[in-house]
């Protein structure tokens, strides 16, 4: 199954790029061997998701996903270019699934993108994380998505029916992680959750249509939490597994386990970068698939 990762790159000078990419060490190469070749070092954000998805795809024996990214350091220019490109070129977006990531939340653009994709026949699987997940919730169309991958803080935002952004999540919902099951229930009651959730945290929860079908809490590597990009690595893993054709809940469970093995094998300190984890993706995923 072909898959498209849609997100941004934290560089103001990075042009809009759509197509194949490869991972070489800690660097992504987009449009390789072409005049408009672009390179970006993997640190966090969408490049981290792309890197882990490519490494996992190699293990699974499938082509790496394609990517649609543009440079955006918060102005929204790159995000809007990505949104416009998707809408204007929807006839060329024939992927079985898409994973949306770091994009400036914009409800009007979100709705145009969602409706254009839903009009495709067959409609692709839709996974959302980070800013685009915020837009999906803000828009009222969360239930139209196949998968969200929130962390505990973002889960509280999904559960808060009036919060327009995690910054405004009400305090009584922002408690410790042991309240996640309650937050899941509340998010579904308000129809602010996707059909499936993979909630990242001390315990990872796999949720299907409001019912928790798996909880994964071992191996537990606390140092993974502060490392920027470890949530992106989990989204990258589940992206590759879905692209391999794996059933949704199994893909979520396997991805959660693989991300934990990634931490266990790398034995990181809180000062690690996600690029330090890349050499361990293969063994981590193989172990999760055993």
């Amino acid at each position, binding site marked *: 199954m072909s898959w498209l990762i849609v997100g*941004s790159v*934290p*560089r103001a000078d990075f042009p809009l790029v759509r197509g194949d990419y490869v991972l070489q060490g800690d660097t992504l190469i987009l449009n390789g061997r072409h005049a408009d070749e672009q390179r970006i070092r993997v*640190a*966090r*954000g969408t490049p981290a998701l792309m890197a882990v998805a490519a490494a996992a795809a190699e293990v699974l024996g499938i082509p790496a996903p394609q990517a649609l990214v543009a440079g*955006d*350091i*918060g102005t*929204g220019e*790159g*995000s809007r270019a990505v949104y416009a490109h998707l809408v204007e070129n929807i006839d060329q977006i024939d992927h079985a699934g898409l994973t949306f990531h*770091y*994009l*400036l*939340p914009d*409800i009007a653009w979100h709705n145009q993108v969602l*409706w*254009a994709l839903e009009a495709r026949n067959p409609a692709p699987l839709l996974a959302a*994380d*980070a*800013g*685009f*997940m*915020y837009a999906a*919730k*803000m*828009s*009222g*169309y969360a*239930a*139209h998505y196949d998968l969200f991958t929130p*962390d505990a*803080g973002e889960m509280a*935002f999904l559960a808060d*029916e*009036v*919060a*327009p*952004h*995690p*910054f*405004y*999540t009400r*305090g009584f919902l*922002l408690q410790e992680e042991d309240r996640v099951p309650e937050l899941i229930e509340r998010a579904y009651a*308000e129809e*602010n959750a996707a059909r499936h959730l993979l909630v990242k945290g001390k315990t990872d929860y796999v949720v299907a249509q409001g019912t928790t079908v798996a909880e994964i809490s071992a191996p537990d590597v*606390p*140092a993974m*939490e*502060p*490392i*920027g*990009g470890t*949530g992106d690595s989990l989204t990258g893993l589940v992206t590759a597994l879905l692209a391999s054709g794996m059933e949704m809940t199994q893909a979520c469970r396997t991805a959660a386990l693989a991300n934990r093995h990634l931490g266990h094998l790398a034995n990181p300190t*809180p*000062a*690690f*970068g996600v690029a330090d984890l890349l050499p361990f993706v293969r063994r981590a995923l193989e172990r999760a698939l055993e």
Partner: protein
Amino acid sequence: MIGFLRNLFGKKDDAKRGVSEKGLLLYHSTGEVIRAETLLKEAGVAVAVKGPPPDLRQGCDMVIEFPLLEEMRIRELLEQAGLAPMRVAAAQDHLLEPVSLYHVKDFGDYLMVRAANMKITMDKRDRRIVNVSGGGCPDVPFLAETLVGKVLDQAPEPRSLGRTLCGYSLQLAFEELRRRCPG
């Protein structure tokens, strides 16, 4: 065409469940509202002057509606011009307040502070920022690359570079970290 028709006829029930992406700037006087609106429009911010909800009338019968996600940049622009608002509220529910709860985790040599969806981690031994994680807006990876590796006292404040509410959450976590670990 499909999108146009859906705009006209479709998804009404779903749309009712959406929440506003607008915020409100409240001032004591109409003059301040007008000056602030002028400044923001000149800066290219999509703002509109509106009548406030009855219970938000705190001495001014006008509020400025603005894109909530740009709150950080807007606050910075207004503060630089001496036009800081009396209050900022979310249009969705004016009782909503920005996050004020912090979660702190001690990893021995490292301390992590979380505000809303943003986390910042420091090495206690040399007060160097070692990681920034969480968030979803595109300024977050950019801010992280700017902050990581810098000593807490010498690092730029996230609000000086960030542009979104995720950046503002990081600013709050940054301030809390400095409060807990004064140099």
